[in-house]
């Protein structure tokens, strides 16, 4: 099997080293073009994510080893070759296994994470557009997609959030069916808040407000988020002019007798129509919080931003529940606020426990996922083995075609023109029937072969039918 892979990932290489070797889209296109057009590689694919840079390839020239391939990639990025202990390489069935494990999420930093399958698909799309894939990588990648899909549907490996912001979103989904109709408030504008905001936007939240002690920082964060969502920063409006859905009296879950809903599965990756952004000062939070469905707090404040006092008691009589997630240490939200009947308050320990529970559940699923990988790898191996006998089958058919034509030419003149067609049909049918058994035998030998028996079978057929080597 000619397939190989070489690369670095999060296990052996630090983020700095991965950054240096990381191939941008442009670099990847250049690499694919150069290596396949020069004949160094017959087929190639670059998988570059934040946790790995891998190159899958089928050798062209004899000198196209993993080191040569890696050197070529480094030449394009203008970096030195990483040290040998950081680089891994697999060939043949090991390379196939590795790709399948990557697509299944078994090789990810957070086992079972969903993003990697999309990244593998993007990498294939790029390589296919560049014309650097052919029969082998096409088949391999489609099998990898199948593995990824099977693992995600047949096991619980990808179920449950693997990070704290993901856990917050998971809680929001348990409470609210459509985040597109819900509003979220971020209290704080730091890195954690930004991660949480991105998780919420990915989940489709329709309205996002950022509250911070310094309004400028809140606006900068909103700018970055808005730019990622719709490439424009035209979100600004006067703070009082943009009311949340809840403030406008919309409780979507309890209105509308016949709501339109999705006809198929709702993908968490589907982005909604452009969400609405808003900023506010920290002092406005206690007054405004009842207008939100989700509030995530992560400031560096030493005291409670939301103490339990009279102003928050009205939260008990909200028509819909309010999810409050306090990621800050020390806590921003007074724990007594969680005692209010319509408030569901979670702190960092609760989310860590949820993440750990999810991880435990995922770990139990690893063996099932590995079994799927093994099954599909074996299936791919059998396909490769059958391919090996394809040249013999082709030659056999060509040889029989030659014989058929020669005999028809030799004896055709003895027949009337009207009978000649029947003669040709007879000859073709006879040849097909003669070849049926040997071809079936070759295919079966290839499928069942565990130790090269298919090679012996092909040789036997070649000898019997006197085919050239």
């Amino acid at each position, binding site marked *: 099997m000619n397939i190989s892979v070489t690369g670095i990932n999060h296990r052996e290489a630090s983020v700095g080293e991965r950054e240096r070797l990381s191939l941008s889209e442009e670099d990847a296109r250049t690499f694919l073009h150069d290596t396949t057009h020069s004949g160094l590689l017959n087929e190639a694919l670059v998988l570059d994510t934040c946790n790995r840079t891998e190159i899958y390839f089928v050798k062209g020239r004899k000198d196209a080893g993993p080191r040569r391939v890696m050197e070529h990639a480094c030449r394009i990025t203008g970096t030195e070759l990483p040290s040998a202990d950081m680089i891994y390489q697999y060939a043949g069935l090991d390379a196939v296994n590795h790709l399948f494990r990557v697509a299944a999420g078994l090789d990810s930093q957070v086992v079972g994470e969903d993003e990697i399958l999309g990244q593998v698909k993007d990498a294939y799309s790029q390589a296919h557009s560049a014309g650097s894939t052919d029969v082998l990588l096409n088949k391999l990648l489609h099998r990898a997609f199948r593995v990824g899909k099977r693992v995600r549907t047949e096991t619980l490996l990808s179920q449950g959030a693997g990070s704290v912001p993901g856990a917050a979103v998971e809680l929001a989904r348990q409470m*609210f069916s459509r985040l597109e109709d819900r509003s979220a408030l971020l209290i704080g504008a730091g890195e954690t808040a930004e991660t949480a905001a991105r998780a919420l936007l990915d989940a489709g939240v329709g309205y996002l407000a950022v509250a911070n002690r310094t309004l400028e920082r809140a606006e900068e964060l909103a700018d970055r988020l808005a730019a990622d969502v719709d490439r424009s920063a035209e979100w600004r409006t006067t703070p009082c002019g943009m009311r949340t859905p809840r403030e406008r009296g919309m409780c979507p879950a*309890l209105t509308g007798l016949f709501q339109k809903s999705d006809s198929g599965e709702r993908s968490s990756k589907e982005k909604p129509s452009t969400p609405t952004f808003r900023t506010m000062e920290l002092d406005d939070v206690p007054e405004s919080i009842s207008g939100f469905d989700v509030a995530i707090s992560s400031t560096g404040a030493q005291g409670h931003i939301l103490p339990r006092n009279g102003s928050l008691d009205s939260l008990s009589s909200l028509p819909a529940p309010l999810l409050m997630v306090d990621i800050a240490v020390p806590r921003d939200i007074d724990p007594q606020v969680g005692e209010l009947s319509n408030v569901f308050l979670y702190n960092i320990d609760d989310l860590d426990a949820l993440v750990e529970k999810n991880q435990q559940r995922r770990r139990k699923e690893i063996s099932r996922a590995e079994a799927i990988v093994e099954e599909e790898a074996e299936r791919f191996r059998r396909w490769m083995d059958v391919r090996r006998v394809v040249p013999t089958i082709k030659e056999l058919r060509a040889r029989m075609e030659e014989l058929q034509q020669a005999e028809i030419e030799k004896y055709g003149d003895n027949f009337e023109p009207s009978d000649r067609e029947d003669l040709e049909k007879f000859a073709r049918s006879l040849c097909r029937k003669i070849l049926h058994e040997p071809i079936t035998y070759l295919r079966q030998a290839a499928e069942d072969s565990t130790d090269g028996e298919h090679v012996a079978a092909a040789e036997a057929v070649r000898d019997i039918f006197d085919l050239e080597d």
Partner: protein
Amino acid sequence: MKLVLLGISALLPLLYLGLLLDYGATFLLQSRTTGRTPWLWGVVGLHGGFLAAQIFYLDHPPLQGGAALMGLLAFCTALVYLVVELATGERRTGAFMMVPVLLFQYGATLLGTAQVGTVAPQPEWLGLHVPPALLAFVGLTVSAVYAALHLALRRNLKRHHVGVFFDRLPSLDLLATMSWHSLLLGFGFLTLAIVTGAVYFGPTAGVSALFDGNPWLAAKVAAGVVAWLIYLATVVGRFAGSWSSGRISRFSLTGFCAVVVVLGLSAIFP
């Protein structure tokens, strides 16, 4: 005609079994969790047509005997679930709804020839009172089931318990919505059942008949009115008072307790 009716009666449990398997796959595999189920409409439509054909065949609605009532209960439950699914697009609870539907219809089919052959005389009011009452009962039962699930999930979330079972169920707001839609349907039919009951008893027997030597009837009417008042308060509270979903669920369960009393008394005083 009788053969056709018997044939459809035999077919219905199989169709509901198919629906149960479909919804079961949705719940277990968590696939196609949202959307609508066109063949549910088909089966419920066929069942409705079957009941209509029976009315034509028997010259009155099939309301007497265990088989007839079980068949009606199956239809009412499937119909209520159809409305809830249409309103919310949520499919994950379908398996739970199809279990009683299948059991009722299977029972109706087994007891079946009585369902199709009876041409016994039947009081007129039965046709106007019993079907709305059954629909009310089913709607309010479904509402109570969703309300119970809603409150259980609320409690779990409040206590930070997030379990595998609740992972597979709809979200908190959807459970509340499903309970609410069923409640509205049930309340509407309960109102109709009470009105048709009053129309029958009012002119023919007078209000005093309720309290002269008919303690069970009196208790049944009282419980029915109490249930109706509880649900009326819930509906008014939701629309005028912006009651929370938790409070609506609690009232739904309370009203259901009164409905169970009515049903029990109906069995004693049909």
